């Protein structure tokens, strides 16, 4: 029997991956579950174990070559004499128009049952399948909120990626949380004073503030990588964007070196691209920390979940007018509550608190740096 080894789907956007190394040569025998090939995407390196024991019959993509996801990169065979043309399973009967339609909708033909003569998959079978798939996809969010399980499997979508990332975070990262509230009156005034210039959003201001601050807090520019602490060479701040069926976190590298207008343009472009699933790979890489803003809703504050391998996640609540005692009288101030979740493996409470102090100074205009440059 011939078994195809296909380039695995590793991430959300990775469409191609590179073969790093074949651990066996053509013609060599490999046992089941023994390391066979190592591949690499923009995000990660992946070891692929042999799905069965057999001979590595043929390598289609050599080390250094790139393969598209789900392309056959090699074959395993019972013996080296076995012909590759030998089909693994019975040939699928598919009418030409059904094949075309399935390709257009990226439907896997093997999942469709053919109703034609000799089980041939026909156009109507593909149409039926597409129709069945569509509502299931839409329902998944509603089904979740009901609590009860329908037994349906989450589709391989943003939802699944969100589920995996948050579960990994909550189960492996020792979170701790710091809460504070900032007087943002000064920040809002400065924002208004931007005049005809592109008015920066709250998220843009915070990305810049965090970026400026991170430069001064080298203890934050670290990552936990499989039991070891590694230092990051750059400063990359992400922000959560809500898209259909989940969230995505585009990152901006070295935002502290951008002007506020430039940064605002970048933020807007990334949001646009995120919604179209067209984010460049570098924007999707985990960064130093991220920010999640729910201030557009009546949410005072919330406890965020750290994006895996980042040091922290800051949650932003709504800005409210609060009466603040200035020593003589109560005066109305715009107050924004924040919560900072941090990975205790990387930073301790005092370091986190110092970060909050620095952020407060910047936001409230007490610090030296001018956010609106």
């Amino acid at each position, binding site marked *: 029997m011939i078994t195809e080894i296909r380039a695995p789907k590793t991430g959300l956007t990775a469409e191609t991956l590179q073969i790093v190394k074949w651990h066996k040569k053509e013609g060599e025998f490999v046992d089941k579950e023994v390391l066979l090939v190592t591949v690499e995407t923009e995000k990660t390196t992946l070891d692929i174990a042999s799905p069965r024991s057999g001979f590595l019959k043929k390598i289609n993509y050599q080390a250094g070559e790139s393969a598209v996801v789900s392309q056959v990169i090699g074959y395993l065979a019972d013996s080296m004499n076995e012909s590759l043309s030998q089909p693994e399973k019975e040939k699928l009967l598919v*009418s*030409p*128009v*059904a*094949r*075309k339609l399935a390709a257009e909708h990226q439907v896997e033909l093997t999942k469709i049952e053919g*109703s*034609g*003569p000799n089980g*041939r998959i*026909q*156009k*109507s079978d593909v149409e039926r399948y597409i129709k069945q798939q569509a509502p299931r996809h839409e329902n998944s969010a509603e089904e979740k909120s009901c609590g009860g399980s329908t037994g349906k499997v989450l589709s391989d979508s943003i939802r699944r990626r969100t589920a995996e990332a948050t579960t990994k975070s909550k189960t492996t990262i020792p979170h701790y949380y710091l809460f504070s509230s900032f007087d943002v009156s000064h920040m809002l005034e400065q924002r208004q004073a931007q005049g005809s210039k592109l008015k920066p959003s709250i998220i843009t201001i915070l990305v810049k503030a965090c970026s400026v601050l991170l430069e001064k807090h080298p203890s934050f520019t670290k990552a936990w990588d499989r039991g070891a602490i590694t230092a990051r060479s750059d400063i990359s701040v992400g922000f959560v964007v809500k898209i259909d069926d989940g969230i995505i976190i585009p990152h901006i590298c070295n935002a502290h070196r951008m002007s506020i207008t430039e940064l605002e343009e970048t933020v807007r472009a990334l949001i646009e691209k995120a919604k179209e699933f067209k984010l460049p790979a570098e924007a999707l890489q985990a960064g130093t920390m991220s920010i999640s803003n729910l201030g557009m809703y009546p949410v005072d504050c919330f406890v965020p979940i750290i994006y895996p391998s980042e040091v922290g996640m800051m949650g932003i609540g709504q800005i409210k007018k609060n009466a603040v005692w200035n020593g003589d009288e109560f005066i109305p101030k715009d107050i924004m509550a924040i919560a900072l979740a941090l990975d205790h493996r990387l930073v301790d409470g005092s370091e986190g608190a110092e970060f909050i102090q620095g952020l407060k100074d910047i936001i409230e205009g007490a610090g030296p740096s001018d956010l609106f440059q």
Partner: protein
Amino acid sequence: MAQMTFRDAINRTLDDSLSSDPTVLLFGEDIGQLGGAFQVTKGLWQKYGSERIKNTPISEAAIVGTAIGSACVGLKPIAEIMFCDFLYIGMDQIVNQMAKMKYMFGGKAVLPIVIRTTVGGGLSAAAQHSQSNEAMFMHVAGLKIIFPSTPGDARGLLFSAIKDPNPVLFLEHRVLYDIKGEVPEEPYAIPLGVADVKRQGTDLTVVATGMMVHKAMEAAHKLEEEGISIELIDPRTLNPLDMETIIGSVKKTNKALVVHEAPKTCGVGAEIVSLIVEQGFDYLDSPVLRVCGKDTPIPFSPVLESFVLPQVDDIVDAARKLVRTTEKIS
């Protein structure tokens, strides 16, 4: 518009051409005083005389040969071959001379010839008077072939055939002579190479020629009651063949059935199916089937003849096989 038989539509068009163009003349067996074996030229001899309506000896080679000669000197001959079965006697003249002369003489010999002939069975006329041999001539480069199914199409297409500067074979199905249809009174042209969608449908494209257009239409009515929607296309001219219309329809229905009376093997259907597969492969949802005459001489016995020729139920069965996917395709 007038109600006219297929026969009268052709007669009227011949009459129009004779009166409007003095170079048009008719040759054929018994086409003069007798008006032809099928009465298609009835009254024309009386109107135009023996100079232009010529009875010929029983020699198809001579009839076609004379047509070629007269065309070469500037006339527009319309020759009648009583039965297409007799075309074989004029085969050398048709295939080696008429179809090739323009090419052989570098375009200097122009042959605006129309050969009218009758095709088809159904009249219990036996094996030598019932054939449908259009595929024989479709195989010959240099011949245009017209095969109308309605009086209106016959009139418009014959008009274009006579105007055409190339040799044209004009096929008249013998059973269709008495059918009636709407026909414009004034002369009018239907361009060669333009198929007609005789019926719009969504489930299956049926391409039928000649008499089979009528049988396919009857089948379509029956199938409609079963919820199967047939799109019926009559190519009307076999060369040039309007594949654009056929492929356009297949793109919509994803299924095709070709129906003709001639034997299945190496018939016109074989060519049409090949072209559908070549040009429309990605649009097909099932094999393209043919309903054709059986590969046998046409029997004299009416019972056997109707068995050999495609019937409405044969078309219905094939359509069901294609559209109802659960039935096995044999």
